[in-house]
């Protein structure tokens, strides 16, 4: 496997401990948001349900801190963490889950179709592997326009078995595009253990066969993610082309809200929850280093709580879009001549 060498002159800085406290705060916001959304979804408040990313917060926060706001991110069906880490407003994300007009997609998209082009989120995506395709195109667009922008596409271990993912990776290699493909390997695709249906030693090694720097990263360690992404970003901005990251992580909850499969052992779940919680880990580390007092942690928690409560209230107070607009803006042609209906 083509291990990514540390670049000679690195143009990114390690976060200070104070910054890491902020990152912790972001991870806590995501965690509380997801817990709330999961609970609301169980209560039937969120049409269609959600795929919570609880346990995978470090991936999103670590990656986004290695990016500029102008960089493009495209996600998967499990992308609330990507959206919030990319800076989308929890209020407007929650409103979108509710299907309200104040949602990031006016209630048209829902959980799997969150987007904000000002903030560089080019959509979560309902089709496994679909987000990576959009990111591929964004990387091409950036290159064609001569922009310094790079693009990141997320998908899961399940996505690594779709053909489209490998077409996308190959084209990025062939065209030396500034694309970072990130496989969030949480071991399962719905209830299927990916190891049982995925040939090869690892997804990262599979990717290496396509001729790009590829590495496995501990997905529960926000700094490891940040570093690996930063290296990939540096290569992409330097014009040397795409990179691949396989991030080893775990979702603490079921595939979607309410899923109660018994495909994972209690021990396995406990192992990850108890000893590989990305929030606990960072918190312990900062506390150990004297950078995080119990009061500060409480502050972060309180803030997260308030943000999530506000978001929920915002969503609940928002209205649905005017139903008479439900079929508007399909294309410039949808009101063409006889096509008023």
């Amino acid at each position, binding site marked *: 496997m083509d291990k990514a060498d540390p670049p000679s002159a690195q143009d990114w800085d390690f976060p200070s401990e104070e910054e890491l406290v902020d990152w912790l705060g972001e991870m806590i916001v995501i965690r509380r948001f997801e817990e709330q959304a999961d609970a609301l979804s169980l209560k039937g408040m969120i049409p269609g349900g959600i795929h919570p990313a609880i346990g995978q917060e470090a991936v999103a926060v670590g990656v986004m801190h290695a990016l500029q706001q102008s960089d493009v991110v495209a996600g998967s069906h499990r992308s609330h963490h990507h959206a919030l880490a990319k800076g989308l407003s929890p209020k407007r994300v929650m409103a979108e889950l509710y299907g309200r007009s104040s949602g990031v997609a006016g209630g048209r998209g829902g959980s799997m*179709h969150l987007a904000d082009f000002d903030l560089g989120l080019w959509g979560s995506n309902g089709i496994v592997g679909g987000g990576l395709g959009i990111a591929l195109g964004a990387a091409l667009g950036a290159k064609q326009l001569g922009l310094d922008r790079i693009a990141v596409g997320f998908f899961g271990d399940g996505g690594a078995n779709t053909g489209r993912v490998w077409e996308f990776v190959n084209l990025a290699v062939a065209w030396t595009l500034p694309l970072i493909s990130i496989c969030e390997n949480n071991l399962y695709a719905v209830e299927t253990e990916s190891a049982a*249906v995925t040939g090869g030693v690892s997804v990262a090694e599979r990717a290496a066969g396509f001729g790009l720097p590829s590495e496995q990263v501990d997905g529960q360690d926000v700094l490891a993610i940040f570093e690996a992404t930063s290296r990939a970003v540096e290569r992409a901005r330097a014009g040397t082309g795409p990179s691949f990251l396989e991030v080893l992580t775990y979702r603490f909850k079921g595939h979607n809200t309410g899923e109660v499969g018994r495909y994972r052992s209690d021990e396995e779940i406990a192992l990850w929850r108890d000893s590989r919680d990305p929030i606990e880990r960072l918190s312990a580390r900062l506390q150990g280093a004297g950078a995080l007092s119990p009061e500060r942690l409480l502050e972060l928690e309180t803030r997260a709580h308030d943000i999530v409560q506000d978001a929920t209230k915002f969503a609940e107070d928002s209205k649905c879009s005017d139903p008479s607009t439900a079929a508007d803006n399909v294309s410039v042609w949808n009101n063409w001549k006889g096509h008023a209906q």
Partner: protein
Amino acid sequence: MSYTAAFQQGVREEMLLNDSIFIVGTDLYERGGHWAQAKGLGPEFGRNRVKDTPISEAAMVAAGVGAAMSGTRPIIDLNFIDFAYGAMDEIANQAAKIRYMWGRPVPLLIRATSGVALAGPQHNNSMEMLFASIPGLAVVTPATPRDVKGLVKSALRSEDPVIFLMHKKLTGVKGEVGGSNDLVPIGSAHRARQGQDVTIISHSFGTVTAMEAAATLSKSGIEADVIDLRTIYPLDEEAVLASVRRTGRVVILDEAPRFGSLANQVAAIILDKAFWYLDEGIKVITAPQSPVPHSPELVAAIVPSEVDVVAAARALVASR
């Protein structure tokens, strides 16, 4: 028995009768599929006949095509029909054309959940006409547990590929089912209600709406003949035309976007074969030319309702 359980039961009975039937899909063995449509088959028949796959729609269908050519009877479960977009070549250029090119039968059943409901734009494509328009494929869209069971049994005894579409909104609907020898032939519509004033044609969940509309109409003395198509291709033209000849007035209800819809296709067939029986133009009720939004209120705004059907039927009868 539920619509979903009827599928399971039909498949199970046929699997007991025919060793060469096996089922392939994601999360089937333990979970029985996303909709519980194969619940229990895993433990009963074992991993050799209930096969979990990676998320590889093209490979699933390709494997099914070649296995069907081998003389087995694979059921490929695509979960949501929308994911068939990732296997279109395997369906349209391989499965559908092999008998034509080489005389080799491809007894392949592709099951998926379809229909307009929640889950947003990418999981609510109306794809029945896409498949029905491809020569070589049959497409069935049952509306009741009885038809699910009867049709899946027919499909598993048929020689050619069948796309088996089960509507999201019918998943939990309960009803009686037939016994182990009760087959519903592919290509046969069901006259779900008898009436002489107006024909209402629909299929799948649309039949539920049509029956509700018929009940409402009946209260004001309008008796509707309700035709549940059940099969999209080969369409039961005789059943449609017989009803049109009886009533001379036609409402077609379809939740798909209008352009390219089954509703328009059926209208064209009636125009072609029963033009002189029409007392009036046909009322075609469909969704607008739009993706399906996430918000339930917006979905409700685009999906045709009982009210639309009742109004259309009344208008036709009034202009007698």
